[in-house]
């Protein structure tokens, strides 16, 4: 198929190629306008969607939107493509694929079988013609479970990454925030700190701190210090207790270069973490977010959502324990307001889940975006219904190190109670054992005198060198 066009009411809309159709079919967002790839009018956007709906899925496999020779992410996606798995849907167009996904007879079982046969771009394409409710109801069918010390992603469960950041990486400040988060049932996805500096020594201190807290309180969870992957490898070489290895990734080789990472380096980190045998073979934690390729000036003229889906193609090759989009962090020049952030969050979750990734979401915004905590409530609720694996638990939703707003410990309780979801099974049992919640998953009243963690918490807060 070499001609990309659609005819609406006698008017012919022509597009320059597959990438152009994808970009122009994208629901409005500021980053695509900034990149100069967005539709010029609302009608042109729908014309592109008509055109996209007619394109056979196989087109995306035949003609990679970034050439195989030019990009290692494309090579990874093409080389790991399972043509046999693609078989059952190989005859479908993008529009027919949407209908296939929505059918009652298309269950988690079918979706997990076709997943290895999907190109990320096929999912990006179909998402562009789906409504928000489509993105929710199809993603909801998919169950992706991962396991380290806790099990994340089981149907009926919702996990939280406890994010106890501190502007000076103060060990006691971080410890205090972790204790508060645990008391609200947070931390079953991971206890993960974004360090304030890129000091390897401080990273090592933080890794030791987290491992000490997890061991002292015997928490069925895992830790991560989210510095650069090379620093984490350095720390592992020095014997640091590293559970999960973190890295930000994106959908093009050039963007990943700007992050200072490559497939080879990620493989090296994965091998190092696996060799520590601290909990399982799923040792990777990735973060992504629409707009990073444009921000790195490495977007190949493509739209930000398609590029984001390609990042999931890269992630998939590493069988991660966790992956989440940091959806509103990048700022209003990429996602302007609550509406755009919401749409992007649902798209990201859908595309990643359909690739069988253990997708979570940092539902968030910065103060220069047109968004507030009500928008976070909305997106968190929508993603909760869609079966999102985990959210962030940030004290009061206010990250005092990264200076942005996310979701809080209280929000975690809100979403679990409202949607009748439980923490990860192992962690849920621990919460009951520690007297934090009852059998029904409700927080118990606080009685400090009887608290099973007060003494240990005070011990952790008074340690030498903290």
């Amino acid at each position, binding site marked *: 198929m070499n001609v990309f066009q659609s005819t609406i009411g006698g008017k012919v809309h022509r597009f320059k190629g597959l990438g152009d159709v994808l970009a122009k079919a994208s629901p409005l967002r500021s980053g695509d306008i900034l990149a100069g790839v967005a539709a010029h009018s609302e009608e042109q956007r729908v014309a592109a969607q008509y055109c996209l709906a007619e394109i056979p899925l196989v087109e995306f496999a035949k003609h990679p939107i970034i050439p195989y020779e030019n990009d290692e992410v494309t090579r990874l996606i093409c080389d790991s493509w399972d043509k046999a798995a693609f078989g059952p849907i190989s005859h479908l167009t993008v529009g027919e694929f949407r209908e296939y996904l929505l059918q009652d007879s298309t269950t988690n079982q079918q979706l997990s079988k076709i997943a290895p046969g999907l190109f990320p771009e096929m999912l990006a394409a179909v998402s562009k013609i789906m409504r928000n409710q489509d993105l929710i109801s199809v993603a909801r069918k998919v169950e992706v479970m991962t396991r380290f010390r806790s099990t994340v992603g089981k149907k009926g469960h919702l996990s939280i990454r406890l994010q106890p950041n501190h*502007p000076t990486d103060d060990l006691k400040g971080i*410890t205090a925030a972790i204790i508060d988060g645990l008391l609200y049932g947070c931390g079953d996805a991971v206890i993960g700190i974004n360090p*304030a500096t890129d000091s390897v020594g401080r990273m090592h201190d933080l890794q030791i701190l987290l491992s000490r807290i997890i061991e002292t309180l015997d928490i069925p969870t895992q830790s991560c210090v989210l510095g650069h992957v090379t620093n984490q490898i350095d720390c592992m070489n020095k014997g640091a207790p590293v559970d999960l290895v973190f890295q930000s990734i994106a959908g093009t080789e050039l963007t990943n270069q700007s992050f200072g990472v490559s497939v080879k380096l990620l493989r090296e980190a994965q091998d190092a973490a696996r060799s520590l045998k601290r909990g399982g073979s799923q040792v990777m934690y990735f973060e992504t977010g629409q707009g990073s390729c444009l921000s790195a000036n490495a977007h190949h003229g493509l739209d930000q959502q398609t590029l984001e889906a390609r990042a999931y193609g890269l992630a998939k090759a590493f069988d991660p324990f966790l992956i989440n989009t940091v959806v509103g962090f990048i700022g209003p020049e990429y996602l*302007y307001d609550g509406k755009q952030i919401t749409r992007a969050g649902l798209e990201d979750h859908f595309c990643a889940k359909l690739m069988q990734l253990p997708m979570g979401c940092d539902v968030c915004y910065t*103060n220069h975006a047109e968004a507030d905590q009500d928008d976070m409530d909305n997106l968190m609720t929508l993603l909760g219904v869609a079966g999102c694996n985990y959210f962030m638990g940030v004290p009061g939703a206010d990250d005092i190190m990264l*200076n942005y707003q996310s979701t809080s410990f209280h929000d975690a309780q*809100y979403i679990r109670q409202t949607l009748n979801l439980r923490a990860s099974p192992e962690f849920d049992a621990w919460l009951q054992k520690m007297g934090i919640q009852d059998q029904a998953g409700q927080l118990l009243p606080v009685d400090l005198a009887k608290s099973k963690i007060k003494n240990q918490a005070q011990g952790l807060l008074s340690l030498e060198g903290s």
Partner: protein
Amino acid sequence: MKLSHDPWFFLREHTHARIALGRSGHGLPTHEILEFRLAHSRARDSVWSNIDLQRLQADLKLESQPPLAVSSKCTSKKDFLLNPNHGRQLDQASKTALQNVASKDNHPDVVLIIADGLSANGIQVNAPLLVEEFVAAIKSTALKLGPIVIAQYARVALGDDIAATLNAKASIMLIGERPGLASSESVSVYFTYAPSVDRNDADRNCISNIHSSGLSPHAAAHMALFLLQNSLQKQLSGVNLKFEYPDVSQLLPRSSLPKNT
């Protein structure tokens, strides 16, 4: 259950993070909801604030050297937020005005640029004292201070265009940071040696978190002068300029991370 006073309150002595807030059911106590909204409202107001030029010029008290007001290519605050590149280039009228005051054979050692960035409120509050201290401090050196420029709708890189047009050897830009909930009036100093439009962030040094409960404008002014002297001596700036501030423990806040590009 309702728990508006959290028994774990003692945890708060270790961090200013929003912990031990109490709860009503799973919700926040009302005063916490309102406190958060107040902080967010101030941050939002700061983002959308504009420099009050008349008031700033009066507060700066620079009778002998009235500041020059310039603007980037942005046509509005919304344009500024949506198109970072527009905020990195001077509009034509400003460019011409600066060219008219620039002197080909009389290069200033440094120009001082006051820029709104993402918090004009922060500039309005912090610029007068910082500029006063810096101007007084530089007088005790042999260094030549060029024009003082006030820039509207400015991103950090606009300083390159301004300083290069004025043939300055270095630029010091005081710019409003992206407001956080803890402070909506925080500003940063960005320093660039041999400014030109092809400079990037790796060529700059940053002193951040200048606000009422962070680094004082007084300390920041002296750090900026120290940075300037070091940079002119070594003829570079950015990640390759290695030095330590004197009395760093007293001058620096415990956090000084750049937040505004």
